[in-house]
């Protein structure tokens, strides 16, 4: 299968270049992080520049990192699945000797490369000319950061793919997907740092998947994570990635059986 990837990636890259304008628009839609930054800055200002241990610079660092990570882990396999199932585009894909998910993965990776090309210059510019960012640039920390981005992407991709599979049972898969996006937006720390949440919710979020799709990675790069917490985080991230992967695989098998039973 891996030998097929260079060709898939090359075609996906050409496809993404066709959509570059659209991708730019999608990136703008992730600007909610930057809107939230402005909100929290004004909150900080009203509170003597400190909210739960965050000062103005901390907020800038937090939301800029959150925005960059969100862009480097964006997924949309569910929307593709929904339209493929409803419009019957899945059938031609199923005739080919390859699981169509490889196509989703390669398109996503190609798109990530394109997004990185836009995100990185912005981050570098802010680092050079913006206010002092509180980022921990130690080698071990940057490595942990990179691993956690991959982990976050794996959770997001397989969870999103799983939500998309609901299209096999309901014509309202959009509703499922949008609800999932909404919950994720809030609970992953993209609207507010998780330390701003009530203590009980924070404890719950330690065990739920959401933190590991964004906040965890932000906490690493901003140096808010110590050794033990880091390993605990990676363990949970790995658990949730594996969990969604396995459930998605099983569901795909059932979905396919269902699809071919009721009409393709």
């Amino acid at each position, binding site marked *: 299968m891996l030998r097929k990837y260079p060709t898939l990636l090359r075609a996906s890259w050409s496809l993404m270049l066709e959509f570059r304008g659209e991708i730019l628009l999608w990136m703008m839609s992730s600007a909610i992080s930057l809107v939230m930054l402005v909100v929290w800055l004004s909150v900080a200002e009203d509170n003597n520049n400190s909210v739960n241990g965050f000062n103005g610079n901390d907020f800038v660092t937090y939301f800029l990192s959150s925005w960059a990570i969100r862009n480097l882990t964006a997924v949309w396999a569910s929307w593709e699945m929904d339209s493929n199932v409803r419009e019957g*585009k899945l*059938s031609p894909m199923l005739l080919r000797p390859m699981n169509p998910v490889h196509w989703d993965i390669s398109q996503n990776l190609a798109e990530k490369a394109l997004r990185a090309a836009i995100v990185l210059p912005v981050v570098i510019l802010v680092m050079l000319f913006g206010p002092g960012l509180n980022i921990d640039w130690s080698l071990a920390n940057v490595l942990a950061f990179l691993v956690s981005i991959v982990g976050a992407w794996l959770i997001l991709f397989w969870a999103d793919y799983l939500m998309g599979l609901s299209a096999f049972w309901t014509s309202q898969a959009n509703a499922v997907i949008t609800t999932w996006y909404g919950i994720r937006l809030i609970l992953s720390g993209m609207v507010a740092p998780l330390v701003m949440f009530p203590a009980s919710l924070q404890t719950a979020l330690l065990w739920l998947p959401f933190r590991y799709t964004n906040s965890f990675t932000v906490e690493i790069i901003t140096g808010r994570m110590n050794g033990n917490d880091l390993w605990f985080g990676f363990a949970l991230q790995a658990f949730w990635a594996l969990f969604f992967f396995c459930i998605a695989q099983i569901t795909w098998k059932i979905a396919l059986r269902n699809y071919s039973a009721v009409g393709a």
Partner: protein
Amino acid sequence: MSQIHVDRLSKHYQVHEKEAGLAGSLRSFFARKYRTVKAVDEVSFDIQAGEMVGFLGPNGAGKTTTLKVLSGLLYPSSGVATVMGHVPNKRETAYLKQFTLVMGQKQQLMWDLPAVETFLVNQAIYEISQDDYDATLKELDQLLDLGPLMKKQVRKLSLGERMKCELAAAMLHRPKVLFLDEPTIGLDVTMQVRIRDFIEAYNQRHGATIILTSHYMADVTALCERIIVIDKGKIFYDGNFRELIERIAPYKIIKLQLAAPANSEQFAAYGKVESCNGTIVVLHVPRERATESAAQLLTQFKVNDVTFEDPPVEDIIRQVFEGNAKKR
């Protein structure tokens, strides 16, 4: 053993019936009504390697459903289907690599990229060696005249051009079995002939087995010796096309244009007088006596013009559906 074996195959769907209007949709929300549709009902047939078979039937007859079962997209409700010894719905790679399904109304080409990108992706997916790929593409280019079309964005191609590329994409792995579902739908006559010629050439060169469905009788008459007529999920006729025509319509149509008006009684001896209005006479003459009758007509009357025709295939098929020719 036959290459395609279908034995008492059935495919039933549960269809959710929804009433119109708000009250209706509320009712169906709380108490869904289901109805079983027998899309394919106890169908049996065998097809040998290299055969070209036409599937004829009106919309909703079960043609596409049968092809989808044979392609592994649908599980049969009951009965057996095997193709090249494989059970299609197991979707084994070995099977997927040996057949293709082309649906005139669905496409596999990537809409936003040139067709050649899909070709390359298929090369990777089907694991086609570079040599085989080059050779096959060259041959397809010859047969379909793809040329510059391959490098144009698919969405900018005309329907006919797109169909050519669609066929090429489906043939790159040199399938041994082809299921062609309405491959000429919406195409103009020239393009229809082009596609038809391609299918014929592919069958002859590679000995491929082909099942073809089409609304255009001309496609089927030109390509298939054997036809399977299917309606409401059941097979009405399976056999030689010519024999069917001769059995249901054992006559030729002779149209005469006379120099002087005549009346219909004068022609009664030759066959059935379909119409006679003054100088134009249309006769249905028994097939075996057609030549003889024509000769006599030409000597007996002063004829300005004469034409011989076979009865239109559409009429024949309609008669089959109307139950005039149930398989004995």
